[in-house]
């Protein structure tokens, strides 16, 4: 384990307008992308709001064949991967494709297509023995989420190790952690790594309805997601993708690449307790944070900004606040903590990568994106949540965390290129 992994390219398709710069501009202004769901008619649902991408696959440059064979999640990933590749300036003609790998984080696969095709072959839920005569030729690529890695590999030209990392809502962090591990062990020089999910469709919306985990502020979508606020009433589903070019430091230096940040520490832990529940004392997330800092050999008080999971549920935000106190000690009260889910929602397996993109851009641009909609203090959530307005700040060390069903907890530590010696 000798290699060092740096991010040299970033591509984003987030709620609102696609593209890295549109994403950054939106979150740094504290604007939210939440609205009444337009991807289907949400009238019969308990929660009828979502943070949707204004995404047209043709305008985004995908070929007709790519559009035909991919789900919305795959389309997001293709666009984000191409933006990341272009941003990195990686010249594939000069690279050995065998030394380039792919890891794509994902939570719920090609969920929209799986549901749409189910409706067709089952005659809208009438037949258990579904009708093969209405089968779409790309159905197999929908049922196998691994197709998301295939698409990104084809788009980037990678021929090294490729996989989909599918640890639920931590997948977006874990896919980056996986990439960093492969670079450090020397299996690859470059990873095209990130995550994608497009869950805003009836079955996922009804799942969160049934769990009573999503916000019901249907009359005020813009202010529905209120992480850490006393009046928070649940998460808002989002969608999108962020993909990175991550490469070994010397490889990046040799080709004179621009470096956004180094990924210096990563850890995943499980709560081993409940598939959806969290201990109020913040133990499991705190352990992931501590382990990531240990790997990075960084002291808690060096953290300049914590990019929160901050889903806006009662349970999470309390757990997470406690986790910062457990893992960072007194520094928890000093470090700015913000949740961009207040603006882009919770895109399940993808959000961890979108939040890493926000963290990397925060280092690059010297600004901390705010927590939108934060107004009323909760006695159990008593940290500095950067309410409403972005802050200028020189950031050397940034922590980003995630938490998800199955008990998964992950944390990643990024440092400014100023710290690379």
């Amino acid at each position, binding site marked *: 384990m000798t290699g060092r992994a740096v991010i040299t390219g970033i591509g984003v398709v987030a709620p609102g307008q696609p593209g890295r710069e549109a994403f950054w501009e939106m979150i740094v202004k504290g604007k939210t992308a939440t609205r009444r769901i337009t991807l289907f008619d949400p009238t019969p649902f308990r929660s009828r709001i979502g943070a949707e991408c204004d995404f047209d696959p043709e305008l985004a440059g995908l070929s007709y064949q790519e559009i035909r064979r991919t789900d919305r999640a795959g389309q997001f990933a293709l666009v984000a991967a191409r933006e990341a590749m272009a941003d990195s300036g990686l010249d594939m003609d000069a690279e050995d494709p065998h030394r380039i790998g792919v890891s794509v984080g994902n939570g719920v696969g090609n969920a929209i297509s799986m549901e749409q095709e189910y409706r067709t072959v089952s005659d809208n839920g009438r037949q258990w023995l579904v009708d093969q005569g209405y089968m779409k030729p790309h159905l197999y690529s929908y*049922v196998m989420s691994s197709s998301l890695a295939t698409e990104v590999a084809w788009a980037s030209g990678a021929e090294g190790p490729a996989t989909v990392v599918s640890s639920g809502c931590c997948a977006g962090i874990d896919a980056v952690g996986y990439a960093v591990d492969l670079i450090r062990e020397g299996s690859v020089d470059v990873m095209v790594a990130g995550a994608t999910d497009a869950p805003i469709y009836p079955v996922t919306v009804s799942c969160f309805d049934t769990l009573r985990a999503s916000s019901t502020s249907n009359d005020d979508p813009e202010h529905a997601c209120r992480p850490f606020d006393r009046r928070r009433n649940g998460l808002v589903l989002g969608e999108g993708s962020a993909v990175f070019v991550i490469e070994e430091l010397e490889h990046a230096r040799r080709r004179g690449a621009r470096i956004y940040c180094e990924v210096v520490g990563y850890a995943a832990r499980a709560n081993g307790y409940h598939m959806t529940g969290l201990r109020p004392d913040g133990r499991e997330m705190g352990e992931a944070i501590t382990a990531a800092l240990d790997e990075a050999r960084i002291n808690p008080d060096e953290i300049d900004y914590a990019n929160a999971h901050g889903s806006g549920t009662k349970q999470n935000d309390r757990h997470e606040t406690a986790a910062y106190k457990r893992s960072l000690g007194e520094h928890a009260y000093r470090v700015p903590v913000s949740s961009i889910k207040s603006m882009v929602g919770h895109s399940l397996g993808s959000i961890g990568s979108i939040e890493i993109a926000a963290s990397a851009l925060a280092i690059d641009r010297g600004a901390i994106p705010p927590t939108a909609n934060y107004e009323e203090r909760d006695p159990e959530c008593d940290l500095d949540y950067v309410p409403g307005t972005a802050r200028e700040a020189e950031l050397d060390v940034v922590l980003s965390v995630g938490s998800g069903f199955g008990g998964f907890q992950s944390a990643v530590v990024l440092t400014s290129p100023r710290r690379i010696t």
Partner: protein
Amino acid sequence: MSAPVITGLGVVAPNGQDREAWWRATLDGTSGLGRISRFDPERYPVRVAGEATKFDPAAHAPQRLVSETDAMTQYAFAATNEALADAAVVPDDFADLDMAVITANSSGGVEFGQRELQKLYSEGPQAVGAYMSIAWFYAATTGQLSIRHGMRGPCGVLCSEQAGGLDALAQTRRVLAKGTRLVLSGGTDASLSPYGLVCQLSNGRLSEEHRPERAYVPFDSGASGYVPGEGGAIFVVESREDARARGVERIYAEVSGYAATFDPRPGSGRPPGLRRAVELALADASLAPEDVDVVFADGYGVPELDRQEAEALAAVFGPEAVPVTVPKTMTGRLYAGGAALDVAAAALALRDQVIPPSVNVRPDPEHRLDLVVDRPRETRLRTALVLSRGYGGFNAAVVLRAV
């Protein structure tokens, strides 16, 4: 850290509901392929599958857990119980953060999912059950195992179709190298609901042969595709030092080498990546081709893919230079469980010094393979190579060595 070793094995397979029953059937050449019984397959062109028909989920987990899980996870409950007992692991003897779960998954809990989709569209959104959120997604099995056995270290889930079981073993090796002491690794899958089958039909690689004994015959000139199956294997993996220190009596095998590659995009004219995966895995194990005593081939059953694999093997080892076998001819391809089951077969082959046969196959001489057919072959085995390919371009290879 010393190389990781497999100290416990658990299996659920179409031709055996536990490790030893499955292994006896495998050596006897007893196939688990038959007409699909989970539902009436009459209307579908594919009617043969490898089903774990005699499996009783309630024998391996409390009813509460059975209610909130898909069959894919229930198989993992059973295989994990067996693997932990086999390795004489009492999870309470370990610190919870020192143990982790890393499984492969491919299609999620498709039967559970189809049932809830049917509720959604026939009754409305309020009919969708709370367990849908935790049963259908790809991470369900790892999450449930982590909770059930109190394993709180770096857990993970990888999806690379049939290659995932080997990728999970490689990720297991990584987390052990970072300090985790014990990992449950492997994969299980249950892809057979009507919607699950129709999804698979669309890949054009399933065999439409209705006679179970002719449906899945990789490397045979009559190969007509593959048969899907369900089940898989779970392993207990730990460092050799740790295993010795806690007095483990039997170490099945050391995980000595691994590599994964990805095929060039279609139309590039460049060769597929399987051969490179074999070469890199051998290099990773610091072994030469002649050190390999047996190859557990991927054996897709699709003529062009069989030809590519045979060519890769001939290129690395020379024609007919190493015994090759495909015991999955008795189970079908188990997707996320497939490569894991092949690892289990390789581990037991090393234990018993016997190569399990491929059944029903008459290898096409053009493939120039020394395929072990019909009867097991007793021979000295020290090193086994397991190959796997996942739909969409994934290749992986693992080298296991007897210790």
